[in-house]
């Protein structure tokens, strides 16, 4: 395991309704390091705060307190305007509900993050084709989401997440809406990305079974990390 720390979270707290009597603290101070090339799962029941943590790690939201450094950039100090740029550059999202853009074909969906990154059209197209072929969707590049099955949509979404070659792929319950067979297929793609391309992947899930597949498992409950183990049974927490 490399010693390069890619993601460093220190004392991350997140509260809602700050400054009102209803103030609600969801995360109570999360410390987390993720190294380059790791495949980590964050497991927790619904309401445990794992989605809130994912939003913060994905730069979709800001923590109330604490420090978050991603690839050497202190996100907590980055101005609001640069957040979309940072997401575009560092993060690839895979959602439970795929969130492909409707009425837009697979290739255009995969091109989208590159469009926002300002990649020229020809390069965009070429990369999108490569990525779609990689996830086994080379035959269906020009199909719109409503012409694709759930598993196919998720594969397009993974190709899209890879478009700008991000530091981290954040997958939020990526198999949650799929049957076990197609879910397996999607998980295999993640394993392949991890093993063959050395991608750093953070899998957020409520399923212990799924989490058990990843080399490192972080369990979160009530806004705290309650256990952390590597997949040889070596408890770290």
């Amino acid at each position, binding site marked *: 395991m490399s010693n390069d720390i890619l993601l460093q979270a220190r004392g991350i707290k997140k509260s809602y309704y700050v400054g009102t009597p209803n103030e609600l603290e969801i995360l109570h101070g999360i410390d987390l390091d993720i190294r380059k090339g790791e495949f980590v799962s964050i497991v927790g029941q619904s309401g445990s705060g794992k989605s809130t943590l994912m939003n913060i790690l994905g730069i979709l939201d800001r923590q109330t307190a604490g420090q978050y450094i991603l690839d050497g950039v202190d996100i907590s100090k980055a101005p609001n305007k640069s957040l*979309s740029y940072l997401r575009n550059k560092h993060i690839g999202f895979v959602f439970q509900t795929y969130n*492909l853009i409707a009425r837009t074909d697979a290739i255009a969906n995969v091109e989208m993050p590159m469009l*926002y990154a300002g990649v020229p059209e020809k390069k965009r197209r070429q990369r999108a084709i490569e990525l779609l072929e990689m996830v086994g969707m080379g035959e269906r590049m020009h199909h719109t989401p409503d012409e694709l099955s759930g598993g196919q949509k998720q594969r397009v979404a993974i190709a899209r997440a890879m478009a700008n070659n991000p530091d981290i792929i954040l997958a939020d319950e990526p198999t949650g809406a799929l049957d076990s067979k197609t879910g397996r297929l999607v998980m295999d793609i993640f394993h392949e990305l991890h093993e063959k391309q050395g991608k750093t992947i953070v899998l957020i899930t409520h399923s212990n079974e799924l989490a058990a597949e990843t080399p490192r498992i972080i369990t979160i409950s009530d806004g705290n990390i309650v256990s952390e183990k590597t997949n040889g049974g070596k408890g770290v927490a």
Partner: protein
Amino acid sequence: MIKENCKLAIISIKANKMRAFLTMLGIIIGVCAVIAIMTVGNSMTADVQKQLEGFGVQNISIYVNPIDWNAELSDADMQNMQLKPEVLHRLSQKFEKKISGISVEANVDGGKVIRDGKTANVNVLGTSAGYYKANKVKLINGNSFNSYDYQQGNNVAIISDKFVEQLYGKEFAPENLLGKEIEINVWEQYLNVTVVGIYHYEESGSGRGGNKNITTNVYLPLKAAWNFTHNEEIYECTVVAAEGENATELSEEIKNYLTDAMANSLGDKFVVGAYSNQSMIEENTKTMNQMTMAISMIAAIALIVGGIGVMNIMTVSITERTREIGTRKALGAPDSMIMLQFISEAIIICLIGGIIGIVLGLILGNVAVHFMGYNPHVSIASIYMSVGFSMAIGVFFGYSPAKHAAKMNPIDALRYE
């Protein structure tokens, strides 16, 4: 980026064709109204302008009018109202340098010429040499009157090609009538004149309908007309200002001169009026511009209502696509790109509506102009203006919904059901 946004906008419009069309309807109707009305207005202005210019911009019409239009006039009054040849003669000497001629017209009356059962209706006019400076009479055969004709009052005439056609048919060459005598029946009095010239009859701007009953002018020297009617009556008098003279200013001078010169006969019953064509053209243009302004205001209201429709649909569309917006933001779209995307969509809707409106407006305007009997005259400026205006509406009414989309919180947007 612009291209991508346009593509996205077209995809979205295609996905909701009916809704996009209904949204456009307001813009279509507004632009259509503007273009149609502008086309009609422009055609009318252009035609009236052309007619007025046809009379000559340097022409100054001279009238004697009663102060009280309802007063009963005695024979002596009628005589006093007349412009007298001697007064006009003095006028021409006084303003010798400033005018190029005085057109004096004596109206003999309507008459007819019959040949082989065919009838040509004519209007017989006595004319001074200045008449041909004030009016466009295009000679195609023969000559105008010579000074001898004017002095002696010879019974010579200039007739129209239309007149020849009416009597002799289309095949007949008009020049064959030169030097021939024709007999005109004016209220059962016969006037025999020798044809010396033939002019081309100009169809008037709104000239529609059959040409069977067209009445054309037969011109005589002024004195010949007076000899026939035994009355030195002046029917119309027009002064032609010399080239480079300001006709409007000159008309004022002439009016003052005539008011003095005719003081005795005018008394307190009549006034002299002198109106330049130029001032009439200016007046006409002003009226037309005011009309256009008023109509443009109404059209602007229609376009604003259309714009509100666009805003409404954009708001609906953005709410519907909240998750899409959230996804785009998660993928790294900056606020400015989201904004651009939706403003582009609004602009494209308005632009398509504007173009449809222009096409419909041109059709409608030209049909209306056709039925009103004018020559169509499309205003290119109004087309550019409409395109610009519909784009501006897109920007203006698309801005607020687009801003709303750009400011959405990505997490909330992604969770939106």
